[in-house]
Protein backbone atom coordinates (compact mmCIF):
# COMPACT_ATOMS: atom_id res chain seq x y z
CA UNK A 1 0.00 0.00 0.00
CA UNK A 2 2.66 2.47 -1.05
CA UNK A 3 1.10 5.79 -1.90
CA UNK A 4 0.56 9.24 -0.54
CA UNK A 5 -0.96 8.41 2.80
CA UNK A 6 -0.12 8.84 6.43
CA UNK A 7 1.52 5.49 6.93
CA UNK A 8 3.88 5.80 3.96
CA UNK A 9 4.80 9.33 4.92
CA UNK A 10 5.44 8.28 8.48
CA UNK A 11 7.86 5.57 7.33
CA UNK A 12 9.65 8.12 5.16
CA UNK A 13 9.85 10.48 8.13
CA UNK A 14 11.25 7.68 10.26
CA UNK A 15 13.94 7.17 7.63
CA UNK A 16 14.80 10.88 7.47
CA UNK A 17 15.06 10.92 11.25
CA UNK A 18 17.39 7.93 11.22
CA UNK A 19 19.62 9.59 8.63
CA UNK A 20 19.76 12.72 10.74
CA UNK A 21 20.58 10.68 13.82
CA UNK A 22 23.47 8.94 12.08
CA UNK A 23 24.89 11.63 9.86
CA UNK A 24 24.62 14.82 11.92
CA UNK A 25 27.20 15.00 14.67
CA UNK A 26 25.79 17.97 16.53
CA UNK A 27 23.96 16.61 19.55
CA UNK A 28 21.19 19.21 19.37
CA UNK A 29 20.41 18.23 15.79
CA UNK A 30 20.67 14.58 16.77
CA UNK A 31 17.99 15.14 19.38
CA UNK A 32 15.82 16.93 16.81
CA UNK A 33 16.22 13.88 14.57
CA UNK A 34 15.28 11.59 17.43
CA UNK A 35 12.18 13.70 17.98
CA UNK A 36 11.36 13.29 14.30
CA UNK A 37 11.66 9.50 14.60
CA UNK A 38 9.27 9.54 17.55
CA UNK A 39 6.82 11.86 15.78
CA UNK A 40 6.88 9.59 12.75
CA UNK A 41 5.60 6.68 14.84
CA UNK A 42 2.87 8.89 16.27
CA UNK A 43 1.78 9.89 12.77
CA UNK A 44 1.74 6.21 11.84
CA UNK A 45 -0.53 5.31 14.75
CA UNK A 46 -2.93 8.18 14.11
CA UNK A 47 -3.10 7.41 10.38
CA UNK A 48 -4.13 3.84 11.18
CA UNK A 49 -7.50 4.92 12.47
CA UNK A 50 -8.08 7.65 9.90
CA UNK A 51 -10.85 7.17 7.38
CA UNK A 52 -11.79 9.70 4.72
CA UNK A 53 -15.43 9.67 5.77
CA UNK A 54 -14.79 9.45 9.49
CA UNK A 55 -15.80 11.77 12.28
CA UNK A 56 -13.84 12.78 15.39
CA UNK A 57 -14.33 10.31 18.23
CA UNK A 58 -16.67 12.56 20.16
CA UNK A 59 -20.17 11.22 20.45
CA UNK A 60 -21.91 14.59 20.49
CA UNK A 61 -21.42 14.89 16.76
CA UNK A 62 -24.43 13.71 14.76
CA UNK A 63 -22.70 10.90 12.86
CA UNK A 64 -21.84 8.89 15.93
CA UNK A 65 -21.64 5.71 13.89
CA UNK A 66 -18.81 7.05 11.72
CA UNK A 67 -16.29 7.86 14.45
CA UNK A 68 -12.68 6.97 13.75
CA UNK A 69 -10.79 4.50 15.90
CA UNK A 70 -10.19 6.21 19.26
CA UNK A 71 -7.77 3.64 20.68
CA UNK A 72 -4.64 4.67 18.72
CA UNK A 73 -5.43 8.29 19.50
CA UNK A 74 -5.64 7.59 23.20
CA UNK A 75 -2.33 5.76 23.35
CA UNK A 76 -0.62 8.34 21.19
CA UNK A 77 -1.29 10.98 23.84
CA UNK A 78 0.94 9.00 26.22
CA UNK A 79 3.61 8.63 23.56
CA UNK A 80 3.74 12.39 22.92
CA UNK A 81 4.27 13.16 26.60
CA UNK A 82 6.91 10.46 26.94
CA UNK A 83 8.80 11.89 23.98
CA UNK A 84 8.74 15.29 25.58
CA UNK A 85 10.07 13.90 28.86
CA UNK A 86 12.93 12.15 27.08
CA UNK A 87 13.78 15.27 25.18
CA UNK A 88 13.84 17.56 28.22
CA UNK A 89 16.15 15.23 30.12
CA UNK A 90 18.40 14.69 27.12
CA UNK A 91 18.77 18.46 26.69
CA UNK A 92 19.73 18.86 30.33
CA UNK A 93 22.37 16.18 29.90
CA UNK A 94 23.69 17.89 26.78
CA UNK A 95 24.00 21.07 28.86
CA UNK A 96 26.07 19.23 31.43
CA UNK A 97 28.27 17.76 28.69
CA UNK A 98 28.82 21.17 27.10
CA UNK A 99 29.88 22.55 30.45
CA UNK A 100 32.60 19.92 30.63
CA UNK A 101 33.70 19.39 27.05
CA UNK A 102 32.82 22.75 25.47
CA UNK A 103 31.37 21.12 22.39
CA UNK A 104 28.22 19.45 21.14
CA UNK A 105 30.05 17.32 18.61
CA UNK A 106 29.38 13.70 19.46
CA UNK A 107 32.71 12.37 18.14
CA UNK A 108 34.77 14.83 20.14
CA UNK A 109 32.84 14.13 23.32
CA UNK A 110 33.28 10.42 22.71
CA UNK A 111 37.04 10.79 22.35
CA UNK A 112 37.37 13.12 25.33
CA UNK A 113 35.37 10.84 27.61
CA UNK A 114 37.27 7.76 26.44
CA UNK A 115 40.54 9.55 27.17
CA UNK A 116 39.36 10.34 30.69
CA UNK A 117 38.90 6.68 31.41
CA UNK A 118 42.54 5.75 30.90
Amino acid at each position, binding site marked *: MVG*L*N*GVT*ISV*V*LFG*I*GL*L*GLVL*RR*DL*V*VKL*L*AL*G*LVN*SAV*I*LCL*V*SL*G*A*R*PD*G*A*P*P*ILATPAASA*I*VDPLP*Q*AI*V*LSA*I*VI*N*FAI*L*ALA*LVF*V*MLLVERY*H*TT*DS*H*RIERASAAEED
Partner: protein
Amino acid sequence: MTAQLVLLALLPITAGLALLQRRRLHAIIGMGAFSLLLATVFLLANAPDVAITEAAIGAALVTLIYVLAIRKTGRLTVAASETPGLIGREGEQIVGLEWEILERLAADVGLDLVVQFASPEEVEEAIRRGEVDIGAGGILASECGENVLRTSGHLPTARFAVAGPRSEPGGKPAAPFRGELADVIDAVRRGAPVSATLDLARFLALSRYDLDAYAIERVEGDEAYVFVLPPSRRDLHQRLAEILARLAETGELDSMIRRHFP
Protein backbone atom coordinates in the same frame (compact mmCIF):
# COMPACT_ATOMS: atom_id res chain seq x y z
CA MET B 1 -8.87 15.66 1.15
CA THR B 2 -6.54 17.56 -1.19
CA ALA B 3 -5.47 19.80 1.66
CA GLN B 4 -4.60 16.72 3.64
CA LEU B 5 -2.49 15.28 0.84
CA VAL B 6 -0.64 18.55 0.33
CA LEU B 7 0.09 18.78 4.05
CA LEU B 8 1.26 15.17 4.14
CA ALA B 9 3.62 15.80 1.24
CA LEU B 10 4.95 18.89 2.98
CA LEU B 11 5.90 16.93 6.11
CA PRO B 12 9.00 15.12 4.80
CA ILE B 13 10.10 18.20 2.88
CA THR B 14 9.96 20.36 6.00
CA ALA B 15 11.65 17.76 8.16
CA GLY B 16 14.39 17.09 5.61
CA LEU B 17 15.14 20.77 5.12
CA ALA B 18 15.13 21.36 8.88
CA LEU B 19 17.67 18.63 9.55
CA LEU B 20 19.91 19.87 6.74
CA GLN B 21 20.26 23.32 8.28
CA ARG B 22 23.78 24.31 9.13
CA ARG B 23 22.73 26.53 12.01
CA ARG B 24 21.03 24.92 14.95
CA LEU B 25 18.52 27.70 15.45
CA HIS B 26 17.26 27.26 11.90
CA ALA B 27 16.99 23.51 12.39
CA ILE B 28 14.97 24.03 15.58
CA ILE B 29 12.60 26.51 13.98
CA GLY B 30 12.21 24.15 11.04
CA MET B 31 11.26 21.30 13.35
CA GLY B 32 8.85 23.61 15.17
CA ALA B 33 7.15 24.32 11.86
CA PHE B 34 7.10 20.58 11.20
CA SER B 35 5.32 19.95 14.49
CA LEU B 36 2.73 22.59 13.70
CA LEU B 37 2.12 20.99 10.29
CA LEU B 38 1.84 17.63 11.99
CA ALA B 39 -0.76 19.00 14.40
CA THR B 40 -2.77 20.25 11.43
CA VAL B 41 -2.55 16.84 9.79
CA PHE B 42 -3.88 15.28 12.99
CA LEU B 43 -6.74 17.75 13.06
CA LEU B 44 -7.69 16.85 9.50
CA ALA B 45 -7.38 13.16 10.31
CA ASN B 46 -10.18 13.51 12.86
CA ALA B 47 -7.86 13.39 15.84
CA PRO B 48 -8.48 16.70 17.60
CA ASP B 49 -7.22 15.45 20.96
CA VAL B 50 -3.90 14.45 19.48
CA ALA B 51 -3.75 17.69 17.50
CA ILE B 52 -4.15 19.84 20.62
CA THR B 53 -1.58 17.85 22.56
CA GLU B 54 0.90 17.88 19.69
CA ALA B 55 0.45 21.64 19.21
CA ALA B 56 0.85 22.39 22.92
CA ILE B 57 3.74 20.02 23.59
CA GLY B 58 5.44 19.18 20.30
CA ALA B 59 5.19 22.57 18.65
CA ALA B 60 5.15 25.03 21.56
CA LEU B 61 6.87 23.58 24.61
CA VAL B 62 9.56 21.54 22.85
CA THR B 63 10.52 24.35 20.48
CA LEU B 64 10.55 26.73 23.42
CA ILE B 65 12.97 24.73 25.51
CA TYR B 66 15.25 24.10 22.54
CA VAL B 67 15.38 27.80 21.74
CA LEU B 68 16.02 28.61 25.38
CA ALA B 69 18.74 26.01 25.69
CA ILE B 70 20.90 26.88 22.72
CA ARG B 71 23.37 29.69 22.54
CA LYS B 72 22.20 32.32 20.17
CA THR B 73 25.67 33.41 19.15
CA GLY B 74 27.73 30.83 17.33
CA ARG B 75 31.18 29.79 18.40
CA LEU B 76 34.62 30.09 17.02
CA THR B 77 36.54 27.10 18.29
CA VAL B 78 40.27 27.33 18.59
CA ALA B 79 42.59 24.44 19.31
CA ALA B 80 45.87 25.65 20.74
CA SER B 81 48.94 24.22 22.37
CA GLU B 82 49.92 26.33 25.30
CA THR B 83 52.81 28.62 24.41
CA PRO B 84 53.94 31.29 26.91
CA GLY B 85 53.50 34.77 25.47
CA LEU B 86 51.46 33.60 22.49
CA ILE B 87 48.48 31.86 24.06
CA GLY B 88 48.24 30.37 27.50
CA ARG B 89 46.33 30.23 30.74
CA GLU B 90 46.97 32.54 33.63
CA GLY B 91 44.66 31.35 36.36
CA GLU B 92 41.16 31.50 34.93
CA GLN B 93 42.13 33.86 32.15
CA ILE B 94 43.64 33.25 28.78
CA VAL B 95 46.37 35.67 27.74
CA GLY B 96 48.86 36.12 24.96
CA LEU B 97 49.51 37.76 21.63
CA GLU B 98 47.66 35.23 19.52
CA TRP B 99 44.72 35.28 21.93
CA GLU B 100 44.41 39.04 21.47
CA ILE B 101 44.43 38.67 17.70
CA LEU B 102 41.80 35.94 17.91
CA GLU B 103 39.64 38.14 20.14
CA ARG B 104 39.70 40.77 17.42
CA LEU B 105 38.62 38.19 14.88
CA ALA B 106 35.80 36.91 17.11
CA ALA B 107 34.49 40.42 17.68
CA ASP B 108 34.73 41.04 13.95
CA VAL B 109 32.65 38.00 12.93
CA GLY B 110 30.33 38.20 15.96
CA LEU B 111 31.07 34.80 17.47
CA ASP B 112 32.05 33.57 20.93
CA LEU B 113 35.59 32.38 21.27
CA VAL B 114 36.17 28.92 22.77
CA VAL B 115 39.70 27.65 23.25
CA GLN B 116 40.61 24.01 23.74
CA PHE B 117 44.17 23.46 24.85
CA ALA B 118 45.90 20.40 23.45
CA SER B 119 49.29 19.15 22.43
CA PRO B 120 50.68 20.30 19.03
CA GLU B 121 49.97 16.97 17.39
CA GLU B 122 46.38 17.03 18.65
CA VAL B 123 45.98 20.54 17.25
CA GLU B 124 47.31 19.37 13.92
CA GLU B 125 44.93 16.41 13.96
CA ALA B 126 41.92 18.56 14.87
CA ILE B 127 42.66 20.93 12.00
CA ARG B 128 43.17 18.12 9.55
CA ARG B 129 39.83 16.59 10.52
CA GLY B 130 38.19 20.01 10.32
CA GLU B 131 36.91 19.74 13.87
CA VAL B 132 37.96 23.19 14.97
CA ASP B 133 38.00 26.48 13.18
CA ILE B 134 41.50 27.69 13.96
CA GLY B 135 44.71 26.14 15.23
CA ALA B 136 47.11 28.34 17.19
CA GLY B 137 49.85 28.25 19.77
CA GLY B 138 53.40 28.42 18.43
CA ILE B 139 52.73 26.88 15.05
CA LEU B 140 55.67 27.47 12.73
CA ALA B 141 55.15 28.18 9.05
CA SER B 142 57.59 25.44 8.08
CA GLU B 143 56.04 22.83 10.31
CA CYS B 144 52.37 23.01 9.48
CA GLY B 145 51.32 20.17 7.27
CA GLU B 146 49.90 19.96 3.79
CA ASN B 147 46.29 20.61 2.97
CA VAL B 148 45.68 23.31 5.51
CA LEU B 149 45.23 27.04 5.11
CA ARG B 150 47.78 29.15 6.90
CA THR B 151 48.07 32.85 7.46
CA SER B 152 51.17 34.85 6.68
CA GLY B 153 53.41 34.98 9.72
CA HIS B 154 52.47 37.47 12.38
CA LEU B 155 55.70 37.20 14.36
CA PRO B 156 59.19 36.25 13.16
CA THR B 157 60.93 33.72 15.34
CA ALA B 158 63.81 31.29 15.44
CA ARG B 159 64.37 27.69 16.44
CA PHE B 160 66.73 26.34 19.01
CA ALA B 161 67.84 22.77 19.39
CA VAL B 162 68.22 21.79 23.00
CA ALA B 163 70.01 18.55 23.72
CA GLY B 164 71.73 17.01 26.65
CA PRO B 165 72.77 16.87 29.33
CA ARG B 166 76.43 16.65 28.28
CA SER B 167 76.05 15.96 24.63
CA GLU B 168 78.16 17.29 21.85
CA PRO B 169 76.71 20.15 19.81
CA GLY B 170 76.73 19.85 16.06
CA GLY B 171 75.14 16.43 15.95
CA LYS B 172 71.96 15.55 14.17
CA PRO B 173 69.29 18.25 14.70
CA ALA B 174 66.72 17.14 17.24
CA ALA B 175 63.17 16.37 16.24
CA PRO B 176 60.63 19.20 16.18
CA PHE B 177 58.91 19.92 19.47
CA ARG B 178 56.08 17.58 20.39
CA GLY B 179 54.06 16.93 23.51
CA GLU B 180 53.74 19.38 26.36
CA LEU B 181 56.19 22.15 27.15
CA ALA B 182 55.66 21.43 30.83
CA ASP B 183 57.26 18.00 30.32
CA VAL B 184 60.39 19.55 28.80
CA ILE B 185 60.62 22.07 31.62
CA ASP B 186 60.18 19.29 34.10
CA ALA B 187 62.95 17.26 32.48
CA VAL B 188 65.31 20.25 32.54
CA ARG B 189 64.61 20.87 36.19
CA ARG B 190 65.41 17.28 37.01
CA GLY B 191 68.42 17.31 34.74
CA ALA B 192 66.93 14.48 32.70
CA PRO B 193 67.86 13.88 29.05
CA VAL B 194 66.17 16.25 26.60
CA SER B 195 66.32 16.41 22.86
CA ALA B 196 63.93 18.91 21.30
CA THR B 197 63.82 21.77 18.88
CA LEU B 198 62.00 24.66 20.45
CA ASP B 199 60.68 27.84 18.94
CA LEU B 200 61.71 31.17 20.41
CA ALA B 201 58.68 31.66 22.66
CA ARG B 202 58.97 28.25 24.23
CA PHE B 203 62.75 28.56 24.41
CA LEU B 204 62.41 31.85 26.30
CA ALA B 205 60.14 30.15 28.81
CA LEU B 206 62.63 27.31 29.16
CA SER B 207 65.65 29.57 29.47
CA ARG B 208 64.35 30.77 32.82
CA TYR B 209 65.72 27.51 34.14
CA ASP B 210 69.30 26.41 34.42
CA LEU B 211 70.36 25.20 30.99
CA ASP B 212 74.12 25.00 31.61
CA ALA B 213 74.23 21.25 31.28
CA TYR B 214 72.55 21.30 27.89
CA ALA B 215 73.92 21.98 24.48
CA ILE B 216 71.99 24.73 22.72
CA GLU B 217 72.22 25.47 19.08
CA ARG B 218 70.31 27.86 16.89
CA VAL B 219 68.79 26.12 13.93
CA GLU B 220 69.45 27.89 10.63
CA GLY B 221 66.58 29.40 8.66
CA ASP B 222 63.96 32.11 9.03
CA GLU B 223 60.82 31.17 10.83
CA ALA B 224 57.51 32.79 11.64
CA TYR B 225 54.48 31.96 13.75
CA VAL B 226 51.24 31.40 11.86
CA PHE B 227 47.63 30.38 12.41
CA VAL B 228 46.32 27.35 10.56
CA LEU B 229 42.76 26.71 9.41
CA PRO B 230 41.04 23.73 7.85
CA PRO B 231 40.71 24.01 4.06
CA SER B 232 36.94 24.31 4.35
CA ARG B 233 37.19 27.64 6.19
CA ARG B 234 38.42 29.78 3.34
CA ASP B 235 36.04 32.58 4.35
CA LEU B 236 37.41 32.70 7.88
CA HIS B 237 40.98 32.57 6.58
CA GLN B 238 40.23 35.62 4.46
CA ARG B 239 38.88 37.54 7.48
CA LEU B 240 41.86 36.62 9.64
CA ALA B 241 44.29 37.68 6.93
CA GLU B 242 42.50 41.02 6.62
CA ILE B 243 42.67 41.61 10.35
CA LEU B 244 46.36 40.74 10.50
CA ALA B 245 47.07 43.09 7.61
CA ARG B 246 45.14 45.89 9.30
CA LEU B 247 46.94 45.36 12.61
CA ALA B 248 50.32 45.40 10.90
CA GLU B 249 49.43 48.54 8.93
CA THR B 250 48.35 50.58 11.91
CA GLY B 251 51.36 49.47 13.92
CA GLU B 252 49.09 47.93 16.53
CA LEU B 253 50.68 44.54 16.00
CA ASP B 254 54.09 45.91 16.96
CA SER B 255 52.82 47.39 20.20
CA MET B 256 51.04 44.13 21.03
CA ILE B 257 54.25 42.20 20.41
CA ARG B 258 56.18 44.58 22.62
CA ARG B 259 53.63 44.12 25.38
CA HIS B 260 53.87 40.36 25.36
CA PHE B 261 57.60 40.02 24.64
CA PRO B 262 59.22 42.95 26.47
